[in-house]
């Protein structure tokens, strides 16, 4: 979208392009915002032809309005809520991860963000029988841990193998690789009619900080622009493909107050629809594997509510008696 050239739309010939360019009208925006009577006089083109051309260009390049009722009908059928496999987390998220939205997990080092991602992958692949794409950017994904989570759910090896096949892992260590990956994903999904082993329902990016924070800092605008481009790609991915996108983010200290806050700054803070914080619980009586989950941002629930989750029992039914005695 931009420069006028022959064949850009029906009715735009090379001659017209030359004539317009000689009068300073080079882009679509120039033509649409110009006074067409004046242009017709100066360029010697017919007013009617210009009006028709403007109409065609607008129809081709502007966004089309949707009716609210139609959109609601469509969303009712296409939105799904995916349980994370962790009961208390589901409660905090109003039943689970919503497709069409970006959810952010934020926490300090060792707080369990990757563990939550692995648990969600295992649950969606095995419990919900849907596909998962795991984009790993800091090397935290281990297949053996996924296998452990699956083994705790079912002793049947075929089921475990089936679930493992539904989880696709790709590695992207810089932002350009990640953007390419997302483009490729859209291409492959567009070509597939339906896969026999389920449809893609969750895309996990662990972590987004690893690829974006090297670009930020200083006075560079390019880093922020790339970050916003990635944000846009993730949101359109969630909306167009009907998947739930989960991203993990680290914490940094605020430079004025010294308090901990999610990394990547204010511009990124607007991107996810939902954000929850994983915090290591301190104090007596709390075992090493327990974490406090706090809802920090939600489009439908009041924030600030907290739940306790236990890393040791993840991947299993939390009431499972034999495992509670076992974990260290």
């Amino acid at each position, binding site marked *: *979208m*931009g420069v006028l050239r022959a064949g850009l739309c029906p009715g735009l010939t090379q001659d017209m392009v030359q004539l317009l360019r000689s009068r300073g009208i080079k882009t*679509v*925006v120039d033509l*649409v*915002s110009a006074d067409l009577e004046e242009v017709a006089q100066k360029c010697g083109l017919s007013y009617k032809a210009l*009006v028709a051309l*403007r*109409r065609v*260009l*607008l*129809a081709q*390049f*502007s*966004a*089309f*309005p*949707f*009716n*609210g*009722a139609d*959109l*609601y*009908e469509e*969303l009712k059928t296409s*939105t799904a809520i995916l349980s994370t496999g962790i009961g208390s987390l589901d409660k905090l998220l109003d039943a689970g991860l919503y497709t069409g939205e970006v959810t952010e997990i934020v926490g300090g080092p060792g707080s369990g963000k990757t563990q939550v991602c692995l648990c969600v992958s295992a649950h969606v692949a095995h419990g919900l029988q849907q596909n998962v794409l795991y984009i790993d950017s800091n090397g935290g994904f281990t297949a053996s841990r996924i296998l452990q989570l699956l083994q705790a759910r079912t002793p049947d090896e075929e089921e475990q193998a089936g679930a493992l096949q539904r989880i696709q892992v790709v590695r992207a260590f810089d932002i350009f690789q990640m953007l390419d990956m997302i483009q490729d994903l859209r291409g492959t999904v567009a070509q597939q009619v339906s896969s026999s082993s389920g449809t893609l329902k969750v895309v996990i990016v662990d972590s987004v900080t690893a690829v974006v924070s090297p670009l930020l800092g200083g006075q560079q*605008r*390019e880093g*922020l*622009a790339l*970050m*916003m*481009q990635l*944000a*846009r790609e993730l*949101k*359109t991915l*969630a*909306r167009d493909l009907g998947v739930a996108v989960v991203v993990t983010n680290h914490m940094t200290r605020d430079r*004025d107050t010294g308090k901990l806050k999610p990394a990547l*700054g*204010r*511009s990124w*803070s*607007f*991107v996810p*629809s939902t954000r929850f914080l994983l915090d290591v619980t301190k104090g007596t009586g709390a075992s090493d594997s327990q974490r406090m989950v706090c809802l*920090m*941002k939600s*489009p*439908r629930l*009041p*924030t*600030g*509510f*907290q739940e306790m989750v236990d890393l040791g029992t993840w991947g299993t039914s939390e009431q499972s008696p034999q495992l509670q005695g076992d974990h260290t």
Partner: protein
Amino acid sequence: MCSDFQRAESGTELLARLEGRSSLKDIEPYLFADEDSPVHGAILEFHGPEGTGKTEMLYHLTARCILPKSEGGLEVEVLFIDTDYHFDMLRLVTVLEHRLSQSSEEVIKHCLGRLSLVYCSSSTQLLLTLYSLETMFCSRPSLCLLILDSLSAFYWIDRVNGGESVNLQESVLKKCSQLLEKLVNEYRLVLFATTQSIMQRTANSAEGPSCASNRPSDAELDYRPYLCKAWQQAVKHRIFFFKHDDSNTSNQFSLVSRHLKSNNLRKHFFIIRESGVEFC
């Protein structure tokens, strides 16, 4: 195109048609009760960091407009332009369900029929879309509310695409602002646009909103103007949103509304429930 359409009916007929458009006072009487004359053709900016209730306020205003008159609404149409895939239809439906005395699928769909949604993926597309929407404003007299969420979504991308010249970087947004001003004035619309607080505060600024007696300075309102001058000049009312951090689970919010010409400042408090924004 549109000018031909206008010539087909007389000027008075056109004015009579457009006069019927709701004014700011009708749309939210609590917030704009102190407006002396009904304001047609107003541009209001919602500004604030994330999580402060700007989008919820937009749902509240949308619900007020699209609900039928029998349920306390205005029964007018709304056009919602979404630039960052932020609009949550299911949340709007929840708000409507709680505000209707008898909510059924039929009634909800009828209300939603008055809402039009447009998704824009770049500032150039936003500009072209505004041009093509001109016919919609012309031909639908019941369309009186235009919502743009958010205007600052393309800020960083535009700055990089414009190269080194600040003028070039801002040129598309400048054209958008000028076009919005023209559309709002010509068609007597009310425009609510949100802008995000994406800039760091200045080095020596107070923590939060001061009490209503002292006039909060720009620094305290956490406002650093970063969008183009054309936009700053087009805005009539700027409304700043804050969230109160008193307790962990508080859902208390406040907003400070500043009328830019008269420099009038007003503070309002609200909470957010299942049924949406409720003023305290």
